[in-house]
């Protein structure tokens, strides 16, 4: 019999009223070390066992969709860097693709290759950060720094070519903003060599570790059918055996000419999701290796008008970010600004499956599940 504070109705102001006698309602977040941002989860516990997870969003909602309605087609792209800040390039890419679809603009081959290279570098950086953060979620602190060592190299490459490290605004309708830096190829080669040397350490330190395997195997199981029904995409869904890599299914830019595998694991648990991302990193490296010495010469940007006007209609583009399928849905009324814009963010749908996955697991597992989902809160809240 705990004192007053465990009485279930303590959070009466919150609209959730489930929970039986003896249940404990805990607010995980908005400030909590393992939510990686300002995610607020209201979890109902029975002892250590999670009975219900109720996400409460909006702590970092910037109403990007509304904001973009007042920005022109050139301007709104930079806003989307702040959506899923770890795959900022890929977000920008998706928006640029959508605008190009509307303008029926042909992107020069050099720009296409540069875009794919940047996408894959971003994916690598994002997966590195996820690896470190996931290891930290399950309690190992050293991997975070190892991951940052590699990620820093990618960020330096980005900084050299794009000018910024995280929110680049490098993709513009019709191509990329600037040509590659002369040192780009050299730096990427250095990074590939370094990465290949260090990736085994990741396995030594975390993947093969017995404690880590026990913490993730069989945890947060979701079946293939459920994953599809919840709209899960990206590595989180591919861990359950869902074929959902947009790069393979609906290839954009030069992805259809590249040799790479769509990683699919059938475990459906946190470890499967972990393995998908680990293998995806190697695939990204192989994509970069295929492209880095074969960048075609030519323009990096197609000729566009100073003021972009999309014809009346609806345009939808989808790309594969580090977290899953990002869709940009633009409804145009023929003006210089979109009439309505919708971002179909991968994190939002992945988060909706959290309750399903965490039910009946322990608190420690909840943290592992959140880590394996690779949630980026600004992506969920937009």
């Amino acid at each position, binding site marked *: 019999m705990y004192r007053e504070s465990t009485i279930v109705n303590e959070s009466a102001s919150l609209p959730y009223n489930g929970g039986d006698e003896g249940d404990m309602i805990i607010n995980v977040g908005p400030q909590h070390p393992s939510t990686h941002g300002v995610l607020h989860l209201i979890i109902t516990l029975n002892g250590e066992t999670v009975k219900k997870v109720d996400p409460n*969003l909006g702590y970092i909602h910037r109403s990007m969709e509304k904001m973009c309605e007042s920005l022109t087609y050139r301007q709104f792209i930079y806003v989307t860097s702040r959506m899923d800040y770890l795959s900022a390039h890929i977000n920008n890419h998706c928006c640029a693709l959508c605008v190009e679809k509307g303008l029926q603009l042909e992107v020069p081959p050099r720009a296409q290759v540069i875009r794919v290279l940047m996408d894959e570098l971003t994916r690598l950086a994002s997966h590195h950060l996820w690896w470190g953060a996931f290891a930290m979620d399950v309690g190992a602190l050293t991997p975070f720094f190892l991951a940052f060592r590699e990620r820093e190299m990618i960020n330096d490459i980005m900084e050299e070519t794009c000018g910024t490290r995280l929110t680049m605004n490098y993709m513009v309708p019709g191509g990329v903003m600037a040509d590659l830096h002369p040192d780009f190829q050299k730096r990427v080669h250095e990074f590939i060599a370094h990465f290949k040397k260090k990736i085994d350490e990741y396995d030594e330190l975390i993947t093969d570790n017995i404690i880590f395997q026990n913490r993730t195997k069989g945890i947060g199981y979701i079946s293939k059918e459920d994953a599809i*029904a919840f709209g899960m995409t990206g590595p989180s869904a591919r861990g359950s055996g869902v074929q959902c890599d947009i790069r393979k*299914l609906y290839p954009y830019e030069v992805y259809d000419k590249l040799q790479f595998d769509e990683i699919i694991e059938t475990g459906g648990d946190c470890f499967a999701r972990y393995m998908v991302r680990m293998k995806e990193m190697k695939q990204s490296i192989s994509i970069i290796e295929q492209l880095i010495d074969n960048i075609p010469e030519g323009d990096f940007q197609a000729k566009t008008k100073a003021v972009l006007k999309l014809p009346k209609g*609806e*345009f*939808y583009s*989808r790309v594969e970010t580090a977290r899953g399928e990002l869709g940009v849905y633009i409804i145009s009324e023929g003006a210089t600004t979109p009439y309505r814009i919708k971002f179909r963010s991968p994190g*939002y749908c992945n988060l909706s499956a959290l309750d399903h996955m965490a039910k009946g697991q322990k608190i420690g597992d909840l943290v592992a599940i959140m880590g394996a989902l690779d949630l980026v809160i600004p992506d969920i809240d937009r």
Partner: protein
Amino acid sequence: MTRDELKIKISELLPSAVFEEGGEWLNVQIDPAVWLPFAEQLRSSPDLSFDYLFCVTGVDWKTHLSMVYHLSSTNYRHTLVVKAKLDLNQPEIESVSHIWRTAEFNEREAYEMFGIKFLHHPDLRLLILPEGWEGKNPMRKDFEDPVNMIKL
């Protein structure tokens, strides 16, 4: 299934459907009243099997609202866009969260952003907006926030 086959199949299922020209995918305009049985058919019909609802959007057209559902099938990889016209003052549509679980969250977002009421939704509460939000729905075109809006 190609776009034309899909069109024939859909018009068999729902004779009242109106098809829109243009767009990347087949667009079908339906009456909100028939949405629930239509959705069930789309999901369960073996040669359609739309099992993946990847985008749920509300749109404010000033004269009316509309809900846009982007559906896809992981088996056949065909895509369909379903649009339902809703009344501006009393927007109501049946929830499809029991057919596609992802709709539960997405409908909650549309509910608070556009004020569209989803009938028989299991848990229709505010998700993103703060508790006790009063006033207009933020994504409506007539929404104005004099305090936080920066006028350029």
